[in-house]
């Protein structure tokens, strides 16, 4: 056994019993962020092998989508990555629009950009708070959730829901946003940079924080690409790949922002990438606030696919018929297959959608970034202490709803 023990630079060589101990971490462990179970093979306190066991939250969303119309399935997408529902809505709607050959009007596209960037900030705030609590820095959690609440209130103001928004619809948005919504956004956006400074003051130079994250869970750039890691996981390893830049969607090419990268590939690097992304997202939100026209259509025009306006439905018989047909039968895109990917807070969120020419999707597959990123967990943890497993799970930023779907 002693020959096969991995080198542990942090600990040196320890001599322990020949038999490795198998320990189940989770699925009820508080630091596994839901219901992840990691089977750890241990030599003393050193992790020899870490095998993530998933599926405890599998709800068959992809199968359910096949028995709903294209519009009905949007409500299911909220529940995949429940910390970034608007990103899921966006990816699903973009895929359906690609299949239909539709494009949302510019005003809707900018509003989508603004809201998905707020989603990214909210998601990163939850991540930062929970990750800090995992590593023993309690107070950060209280601050980040305070700010996140303000963002969630904006979602509620627009869609009526804090989390399960379903605000983006195929071809545009569900509702015209309230008149003074941008003022609320401005208040949050003006306050946030100061708050992010506060978090950084608490953590970035904190010696305990640095000791717990620097050099822990190192993922090299080559390994990150080979393991299909995306989002902050990939950028923390020095690969400047961001789908908003590489394959722009929803008018992202018109926005000016920097792709955040770090070269170390450890937990600290991923922390810096995410904090940097909060600041970059704020820049995008500010630009979007300038760009959004005060008036204009929020839905594309396509008879039989996009529901007519309330007024039209109430005043013309044709509008009423379309309204009725769209909400009972749905609409049938041409047969074909498309793949649409967006940069969700966690990485490449993809929707593969196949149509057979009927009103229900033939197949919807969600390429969940958490699912793929979690695969690298064993690479991050092996040869480290159990306590580092918590740090590694934290910086992978998994959402189990998305892992298991």
């Amino acid at each position, binding site marked *: 056994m002693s020959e096969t023990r991995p080198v542990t630079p942090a600990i040196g060589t320890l001599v322990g019993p020949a038999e490795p101990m198998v320990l189940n971490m989770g699925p009820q462990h508080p630091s596994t962020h839901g219901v992840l179970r990691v089977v750890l093979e241990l030599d003393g306190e050193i992790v020899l092998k870490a095998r993530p066991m*998933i*599926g405890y939250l*599998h709800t*068959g969303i*992809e*199968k*359910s989508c*096949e*028995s709903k119309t294209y519009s009905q399935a949007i409500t299911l997408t909220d529940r995949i990555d429940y910390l970034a529902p608007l990103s899921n809505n966006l990816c699903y709607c973009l895929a359906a629009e*690609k*299949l239909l*050959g539709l494009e949302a009007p510019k005003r809707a596209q900018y509003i989508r950009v603004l809201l998905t960037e707020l989603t990214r900030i909210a998601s990163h705030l939850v991540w930062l708070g929970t990750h800090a609590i995992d590593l023993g820095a309690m107070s950060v959690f209280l601050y980040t959730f305070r700010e996140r609440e303000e963002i969630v209130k904006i979602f509620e103001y627009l869609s009526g829901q804090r989390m399960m928004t379903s605000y983006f619809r195929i071809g545009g948005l569900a509702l015209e946003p309230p008149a003074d919504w941008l003022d609320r956004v401005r208040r949050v956006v003006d306050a946030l940079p100061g708050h992010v400074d506060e978090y950084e003051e608490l953590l970035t130079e904190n010696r305990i924080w640095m000791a717990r994250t620097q050099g822990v869970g190192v993922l090299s750039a080559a390994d990150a*690409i*080979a*393991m*299909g890691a*995306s989002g902050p996981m990939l950028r923390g390893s020095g*690969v400047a*790949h961001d789908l908003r830049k*590489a*394959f722009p969607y929803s008018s992202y090419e018109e926005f000016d922002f920097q792709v955040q990268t770090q070269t170390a590939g450890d937990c600290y690097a991923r922390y810096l990438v995410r904090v940097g992304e909060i600041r970059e997202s704020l820049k995008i939100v500010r630009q979007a606030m300038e760009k959004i026209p005060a008036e204009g259509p929020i839905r594309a025009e396509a008879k039989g696919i996009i529901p007519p306006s309330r007024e039209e439905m109430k005043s013309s018989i044709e509008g009423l018929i379309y309204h009725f047909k769209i909400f009972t039968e749905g609409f049938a895109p041409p047969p*074909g*297959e*498309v*793949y649409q*990917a967006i940069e969700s807070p966690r990485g*490449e969120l*993809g929707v*593969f959608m*196949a149509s057979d020419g009927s009103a229900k999707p*033939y*197949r919807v*597959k969600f*390429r969940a970034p958490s*699912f*793929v990123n979690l*695969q690298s967990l064993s690479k991050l943890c092996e040869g480290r202490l159990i306590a580092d497993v918590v740090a590694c799970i934290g910086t992978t930023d998994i959402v189990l709803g998305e892992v*298991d*779907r």
Partner: protein
Amino acid sequence: MAEPQENDANPVVRKLREWDAQAVAEVIEFRGETTVVVPRAQIRPVAEFLALEPSLQFSFLSDITTLDRFPVEPRFEVNYHLVSLQRGERLRLKVRVPSSEARVPSVTAVWPTANWHERENFDLFGVRFEGHPDLTRILLPDEFEGYPLRKDYPTEGYR
């Protein structure tokens, strides 16, 4: 099956054909996305070529997913979504698999990330990936019977 003039459209397809004329069974263009249908036996060498060829560098595998065309044969279509990070390009490979022999050579040796993707496809569709290091169920419990994403598996009621 393949017509000579259609390969001029996409340089990747042209390079694939130059490398091995047998590697491309069909090319599908839809909504600006290119799908290359690859014969089942060729998927491993094609994957290796696309990932390692310096002028292509499809080093990133985003996703593997299956389509069940039940009751049409060949019943399954396994789709591979590739990305070239350096060149900013996407490509979809498709392998058609008959239900009588639902097996595909594994690509885990080319892209290690394929490990969990292939397990998921095995778990939900029952497509076997030959040469996979650990082909077990991933989302469903080990004792689960059937493959729920197949089209002959009902969404509700008694199965």
